[in-house]
């Protein structure tokens, strides 16, 4: 029997992996993928609670998150492509024009 806390622990682990990916990876595409990981970790939590509580509310939220994530991926990739065309690089460390 897989209990609720198993889902939550897995979700937390995936979320942490996503956070670390966003913070330390040097490739914008991987950063974007890490964000997807974080979102899906949250989705997993929603589904687990939905099942546990016997309520459909969590599943509705998941659909919204997935729709937003799709839109975000489209825009994010478009930005990344145009940045790459401009600078021939995807390293976020090199994109520091907006500072002091």
């Amino acid at each position, binding site marked *: 029997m897989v209990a609720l806390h198993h889902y939550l622990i897995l979700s937390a682990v995936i979320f942490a992996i996503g956070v670390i990916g966003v913070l330390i990876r040097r490739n914008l595409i991987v*950063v974007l993928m890490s964000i997807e990981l974080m979102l899906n970790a949250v989705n997993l939590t929603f589904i687990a609670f939905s099942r546990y509580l016997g309520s459909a509310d969590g599943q509705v939220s998941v659909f919204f998150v997935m729709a937003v994530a799709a839109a975000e991926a489209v825009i994010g990739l478009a930005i990344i492509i145009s940045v790459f065309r401009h600078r021939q690089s995807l390293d976020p460390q090199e*994109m520091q024009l907006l500072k*002091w």
Partner: protein
Amino acid sequence: MVSPEPSSVAYDLLRWMPLIPLLASGFNLFFGRALGKQTAGALAAAAVGASFALACYVFWQLPAHGIWRDTVYTWIESGSFQVALSFQVDALTAVMLLIVTGIGFLIHLYSLGYMAHDEDRVRFFVYLNLFIFFMLLLVMGDNLLILFVGWEGVGLCSYLLIGFWHHDHNNTIAGNKAFIVNRIGDFGFILGIFVLVTELGRQGIWTLDFVELQQHVKMLEPATITLITVLLFVGAAGKSAQLPLFVWLPDAMAGPTPVSALIHAATMVTAGVYMTARLHFLFILAPATLALIAVIGAATAFFAATIALTQNDIKKVLAYSTVSQLGYMFLAVGVGAFGTAIFHVFTHAFFKACLFLGSGSVIHALGGEQDMRKMGGLKGFMPVTYWTYLVATLAIAGVPFTAGFFSKDLILWQTFSHGATGLWSIGLITAGMTTFYMFRQLFMVFHGECRVDAHAKAHLHESPAVMTLPLMILAAGSIFSGWLGAPEYLWGSRWEHWLEPVLGVSEVHHDSVSTEMIITLLTLGVVVSGFLLAFVNYRKTGAQTGSQAGGGLFYQISFNKFYVDEFYDLAIVRPFTALASFFARIIDPWVIDGTVNGVATTARRFSNIWRYLQTGNVQHYAAMFLTGALALLAYFLGQL
């Protein structure tokens, strides 16, 4: 005291009286040059003429106890406090309307000739029409705020016209002086309005309307009324050139002579008298203020007359004479004879405008010369100017059956019968001095040998008809305008009956006719001796005229105007400018700028430390985000 409630009738015609000069002024401002200088001037004169025609019509049609009103729109509305842009005409306003538009029209006509050679005369007529507009606002406003707008507006026009020939720096300084001295008075005036409004508001009455003020003014404490009236009188003293704020008026003669005649003799400077008459219901409740006004009026009359005795500038003599006559008016106000004060405003407007325009005619003929020592014997060259000047001189001196005789004698009689014997004797002596300095001037300018230099003499000419016609009309007015207010022992006064609905029945006793005649004879005696003194000393001019150096101590003091300007310069202007330059050099750059810049510098230094947190690296921001989120999480977990 209070006459039956006057009937108030709405009448849309009134707004056109001030509006026409304003429109003409605006039109000339933008299109005057395109119109041509002569046409622009004619348009300006025609606009005032139209206003004059309206004023005559209104004067004719106005019922004895009536008030006509014209409310254009509500200007300010704040809770129960309402101020409307609204005009009213009652008997008092009707008289002032006739003076302002009538004399104004004549002077516009005169200016067509006088300013004929001036390059800038379109601007001149723009200002002059604007002045008529503001003056009409002043006398027609049905509440204190409209009056105040007009009051400030005429001050502005006065400033603009004194400095009209701004290429001469002295004229600009004179304009500034007039403006600043008037500011002092106006400050008192507006403080008076504030106190009046708030004190009445404390009783639940929020109004500035004259009719409503008159109904409710009894609710105020006597001490408050005294304070209000003194403050208002400070304003009147500034505008009407009373001690100690009279210093601007003689300097205001730097403006073109028609301006001196219109603004600084006939109309604007009498605004203070008009204001006290308009608010007479307030002033009669403050006997202490009235006493102060009487003393200041008499002192001003005397003081200015002593200065006028020795001046050599033709316009300066008239300027001090104006100050002196305004003193008489306030003397009348001070003894509670508001109607008589307005009567003197009325007659004075004729003879003083005539005198100024006459002097302008002389100055015009001599190509700008104003020193009477370089005149003389002009009688033969300028007969019309001479005869009108003579008539006006007789009028101001108070020769029987001229306008000045009736009004000045009435003031002296009112003062005497009021019991103010001291003030009366001062007024009596002043009447003698008035005669002396006016005939001194007449003899120096028109009689004796001609001291005009050869070059100017070749150009000597009588002024054109457009200038002499107003002179003749004003000279006629200098005689006949006084006949409206004759004393009881002649044919009685129509004047007081006309003003009764506004000012209430005069308190002055007419019972002792014989005393009144004796007083008049005394005055006449003084006047005749003043004339004889001038006749003996200045009939054959030449010897005395240049004796500036030879005079005694009193001559020197009078000639130097009691050193009042020097005293003000030493006591007020210099300390003030010293203080101002101290503030400009120490306080402003170090304290004010120092504080402001110090705040900015501190903020900049502080933010310099923290700005390096902003690296521009998205991942750093995300890390901070995470730190913050974790900190919040830790905090809330700790709360559990």
